[in-house]
């Protein structure tokens, strides 16, 4: 009876072995390549980025038509906006004298500057649309129902934060579009009875859109609101897991 004999390892196997089974690599990635169910679960459970997920998930939830990935894509937009935003921050100074020139400079003199600015702009619009659609998905699939009530509330807060993030960014190019949009927008806030004018003054740091408004919007846009959003996102994602993952029929 023929017994299967061990074969000589090929060159590819040897290289693979040297690359991925060495001391350094294993210190970074504890699990092997996720080609067995055990490793696939381990990689999700032990990787900091993947561990937001459970290791297993109901089969209906991976169907694209169940969520359309809207929540995940909103988060992805947030990440993309952070990356492009940081790149834009290298060149942009939020002063009335420089802001507009810096934007022109980004568009004309910076390598891929126009592309970065475009990406930042369109991603911001996409994020607003996606977060709204995500809310509709959650509503029409009844996913706000118990025990996910509070996560719905966190979601509403994140919706408002997304609008505010976009709104504060709108002023930064310091062109006519930005100036008048923020004038109109803050006038809306200023129309509140009793507290309106105070709110408007507090938002703008003055009675009209000027240097103080620019620095306020900039600070809120690049650090204040993203931090707040990140905190609420952490709670939002954590609660998805704590509340038993995505909603499904009981």
């Amino acid at each position, binding site marked *: 009876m023929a017994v299967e004999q061990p074969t000589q390892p090929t060159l590819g196997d040897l290289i693979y072995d040297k690359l991925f089974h060495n001391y350094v690599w294993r210190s970074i990635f504890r699990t092997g390549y*996720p080609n067995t*169910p055990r490793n*696939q*679960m381990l*990689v*999700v459970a032990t990787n900091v980025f*993947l561990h937001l997920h459970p*290791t297993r*998930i*109901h089969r*209906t*939830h*991976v169907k694209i038509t169940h969520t359309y*990935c809207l929540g*995940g*894509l909103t988060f*992805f937009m947030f990440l*993309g906006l952070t990356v492009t935003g940081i790149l834009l921050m290298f060149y942009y100074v939020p002063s*009335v004298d420089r802001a507009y020139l810096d*934007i022109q400079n980004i*568009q004309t003199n910076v390598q891929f500057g*126009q592309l970065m*600015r*475009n*990406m930042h702009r*369109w991603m911001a*619009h996409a994020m607003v649309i996606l977060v709204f659609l995500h809310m509709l998905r959650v*509503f*029409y*699939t*009844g*996913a*706000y*129902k118990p025990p996910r009530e509070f996560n*719905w509330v966190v979601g*509403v807060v994140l919706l*408002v934060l997304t*609008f505010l993030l976009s*709104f504060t960014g709108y002023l930064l*190019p310091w*062109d*006519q*579009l930005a100036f008048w*949009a923020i004038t*109109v927008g803050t006038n*809306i*806030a200023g*129309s*509140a*009875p009793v507290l*309106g*004018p105070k709110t408007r*003054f507090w938002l703008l740091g003055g*009675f009209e*859109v*000027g240097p103080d408004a620019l620095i306020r919007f900039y600070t809120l846009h690049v650090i204040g609101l993203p931090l707040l959003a990140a905190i609420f996102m952490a709670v939002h994602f954590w609660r998805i897991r704590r509340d038993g993952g*995505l909603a*499904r*029929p*009981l």
Partner: protein
Amino acid sequence: MATVVVARPAARPTPRARDEEVLVWPDLVFVEFISAMLFTVLLFLLSYLMNAPLLDEANANVTNDPAKAPWYLLNLQELLLHMNAALAGIVVPTVWLIILIVFPYFDRSTDGQGRWFADVNSVKNTVVSLNVGLWGTLALIIWNSGKAALWAKDWFGFSGGSTLAFLERSAALKDPSVVPWPGWADSIPYLWFNLKILDEGPGAGVTTFQKIDLPTLLVDIGIPTGFMVGFSCLLIFFFWKINWVHTRRDALITLMSGFVGVFLMLTVIGTAFRGPGQDLIWPWDLRTLEGIPGQE
């Protein structure tokens, strides 16, 4: 024999059906990766094809006409044209956000979760409410813009004169020649002293609370509030009558779908159909719309 009563939770978590589950790696991670890549490619493509707008440098002395808020606030800006500013800009969005937050505490049943349109009639309910929101809003905008009266005159030679001026816009109802308001109606005292709150800078003036301007209150706050609250209640009541709304969930579906319709129509009109002086115009006559190539 004594019986020990053990408290049990009313609803037990259903046992996990392992054979119904798939592994997150690769099944879910794959879907997430593909959708992220798809969006990255699409956004790169969009950014390649279309530049972000950049107009002239900001100048407080040159007013943009039309001056528009960012597009997602244009629904509020559109509302501002039809009612009291505080009502449109502050009260309506705040109340709506509170209603949104209250949703899960109002509808506490766990039925039908995790499936699209799980409830009976929910698709019909959604589609009809959405359309009522969309076209109802459009009709109200056209009416209050005076276009309806203009068309009636142009097409049928119909002119109501001042008596039918309210057909032109609701604000006409404040005019004593249209509605015979008694002389005292616009200053009805309700405080015996003049209460002044927050004198806020140039133009803001003092907020005083002593007299009520009844025609203004009625036309700028009463009528719009009546429309917003009344129509919502009427729609839910009607659906309840025809057996489309049975549960709180059904009522919420009507409310939410109607809202989406109104929100979309207001945003679209505010973005694409409002020109200089906030007049209704066709989108192709609009000059400064964000994102149109050649505008930057």
